[in-house]
């Protein structure tokens, strides 16, 4: 540090020039993907749109005929929509984890990943809200939740925290994005006029003067503190949708922390997949190095171990007791009709990654991405295991019911709508990355030791 200070003191102009050039080069690297719209992107967005529109058509059918078109019936009255909702809420926690927790604890390596994490969080939480409305029997009455809401209901708490977290996450995404938008406004050429206008409008007149930097950094710091309790409460409250009922399997005091731990794990898996894809597609090897994969791999192992601990508490302790109503449920999970999914999730989604990623060789980009995909798929299936099997094992035995009431399997319309929500999340992320730089350059530059406030001059002189 002393040497650097001497350097600056000796030749401030030269230092600044060098850093400005460095910074400009970084900006260029991130703006290149925004100029191109190759056939790869077109195919990808085309596929996502197709899946999304199919789902929209199936939702129209659901509005017309009712929820009868799903596989839901009186016993498994919650199914894929709700498990998908829980999954989305889970992965949205990663925004808080990466952007905020790591920021506050001064881990520097996360810096290129903050925006990826934040956009995953915002996209997921938007579709969490939408999929919940899809699950409602009378969606046209959604305003009743606001005009006649009951504060005693966990759904009310969930709505309040989700809305709050969405707002805070959106601000947490938008504020550090301002310098990036300003760069696009000033130096992104070869884009349509409406796009330029959009940048101008969204940039809020950002010019990098000291006051703006001060305001922005203060707000980001406030938000990074605020968003941690918000993220924890959003998934704790979602867990309470189940834990506040008297059903065997949900009547557990462990649910809050169990869900939060699983959420961090699932979100981290998503970020790994996201950064692998963006690195490849946008040629960001200069910013996302093997070091980042290595560290994310270590984080994944750590989170897997914590989640395994909560799983042990959640399943081993009731299995030890084998209380009457829980006995059938646990037997079904361990050796019965749900055993294949259960063991796939526990082994491939949690235990295997935890063991194999302990080795440095496994934390290279490609193997790590594969394990991250397994973790994400496992997380999605785990949410299904949390929702429907418990509903199919109520206190009073199911008798005299039709076959499709005793078992739950989602129908094609149901799966199509869920696929549409997943496609929607990916669409938001893809479209965002097509308009805005996916890496927060000023944060990376700051991490590299460049005094961002001194050298930042987006306006071409």
């Amino acid at each position, binding site marked *: 540090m002393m040497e650097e200070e001497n350097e600056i003191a000796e030749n401030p102009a030269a230092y600044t020039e060098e850093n400005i050039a460095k910074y400009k080069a970084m900006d260029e690297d991130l703006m290149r993907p925004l100029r191109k719209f190759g056939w790869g992107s077109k195919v990808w967005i085309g596929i996502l749109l197709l899946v999304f529109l199919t789902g929209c058509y199936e939702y129209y059918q659901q509005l017309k*005929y*009712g*929820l*009868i078109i799903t596989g*839901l*019936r*009186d*016993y498994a*009255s*919650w199914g894929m929509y709700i498990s998908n909702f829980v999954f989305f809420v889970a992965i949205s926690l990663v925004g808080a984890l990466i952007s905020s927790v790591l920021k506050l604890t001064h881990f520097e390596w996360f810096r290129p990943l903050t925006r990826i994490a934040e956009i995953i969080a915002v996209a997921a939480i938007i579709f969490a809200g939408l999929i919940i409305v899809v*699950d*409602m*029997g*009378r*969606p046209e*009455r*959604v305003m*009743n*939740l606001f005009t*006649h*809401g*009951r504060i*005693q*209901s*966990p*759904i*009310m708490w969930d*709505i309040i925290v989700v809305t709050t977290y969405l707002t805070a996450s959106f601000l947490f995404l938008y504020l550090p994005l301002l310098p990036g938008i300003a760069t696009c406004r000033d130096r992104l050429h070869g884009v349509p006029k409406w796009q330029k206008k959009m940048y101008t409008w969204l940039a809020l007149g950002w010019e990098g003067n000291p006051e703006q930097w001060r305001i922005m950094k203060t707000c980001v710091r406030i938000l990074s503190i605020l968003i941690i309790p918000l993220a924890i409460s959003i998934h704790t409250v979602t867990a309470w*949708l*189940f834990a*506040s*009922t*008297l*059903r065997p399997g949900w009547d557990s005091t462990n649910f809050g922390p169990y869900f939060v731990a699983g959420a961090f794990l699932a979100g981290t898996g998503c970020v790994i997949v996201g950064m692998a894809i963006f690195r490849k597609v946008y040629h960001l090897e200069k910013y996302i190095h093997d070091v980042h994969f290595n560290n994310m791999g270590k984080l994944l192992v750590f989170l897997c171990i914590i989640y395994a601990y909560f799983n042990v508490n959640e399943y081993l302790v009731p299995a030890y007791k084998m209380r009457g109503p829980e006995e059938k449920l646990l037997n079904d999970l361990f050796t019965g009709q749900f055993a294949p999914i259960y063991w796939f999730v526990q082994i491939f989604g949690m235990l295997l990654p935890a063991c194999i990623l302990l080795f440095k060789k496994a934390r290279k980009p490609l193997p790590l991405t594969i394990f991250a995909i397994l973790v994400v798929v496992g997380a999605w299936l785990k949410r299904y295991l949390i929702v429907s099997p418990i*509903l199919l094992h*109520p*206190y*009073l*035995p*199911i*008798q*005299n*019911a*039709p*076959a*499709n*009431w005793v078992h739950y399997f989602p129908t094609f319309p149901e799966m199509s709508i869920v696929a549409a929500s997943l496609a929607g999340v990916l669409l938001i992320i893809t479209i965002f990355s097509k308009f805005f730089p996916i890496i927060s350059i000023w944060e990376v530059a700051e991490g590299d030791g460049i005094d961002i406030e001194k050298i930042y001059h987006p306006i071409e002189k």
Partner: protein
Amino acid sequence: MENEIENNNNPRRKFLKFGLIAGGTALVGMGVNKALVGTLKAEEKSGTKVKVLMADGKLVEVDRAAIEHPSLDSVTHLPIREGLPGKKFVRVIDLARCANARKCVEGCQKAHNMASPYEYLKVRRMQDAGETAPYWFPQMCFHCDNPPCTKVCPVDATFKRSDGIVAIDSERCVGCRFCMAACPYSARTFNWGSKDQPQQTATVPGDKSENYCPTPPTPVGTVSKCDFCPDRAAQGLLPSCVLSCPNGTIFHGDANEDTVSNGEETFRLSELLAKRGGYRYMEELGTEPRVYYLPPVNRMFPIEEDTEKHNTHE
């Protein structure tokens, strides 16, 4: 001479009998016809078609304008949020009498315009332990005094009334089904919107039998359950299930009067519970149900497997 007198009287009696029956059937038939089909004028009005459940269990599509049903009459059913003043409904089910005749289930379905497999009232075969005797267990919403379902409703669509009934406001319900997840007794059912569900039940005007109930049918996408038939209570009629049971298993009454009745026998609630060892199902859940059970001691009938019915209609 006596023989002659007898012979002359018999054909007359026979004729009178025949005439009365024929006339009665004609009247009933006309009434049913009117209820269903209406006059030619009504048929000419092309309105929405409504599915009607006939007495023989068939579903028929009929013009809505031609339907006369007490639930469409705006004066017969009461505002949903007001409890019947001064009442506290309570129920006692005598497990020693239940023989799985399932007439209660059918009566309730007819009164509330439901086709199987939707049942507010379920009769289950329970066996508490391997060595204990099995018994038939009719169970419906317990209208708990500490209801877990009203706790979780986000829009105040289900609530506890002053008369002890846990009611559902079908106009407010958003169909989130949280109450269904929260009920530990699986008492609630949802109108998923099947094409095979009736929207009305065929009825005769002036019918006050156990199939008469002015409660409107459940709209699609909302939750419903046993409601202790308050619209019948307002007219002094016992609920459908109580009157349909051939063995008088279900006793229904007002705890403020300390009286329950199954239509034929009336007892003091406190005496019945004390004498027969009344208890509540799964008391340890703390929901404080308003339905008591009398243990299956000195059973009226042996447990019979062959009366088990299986509803496999989707």
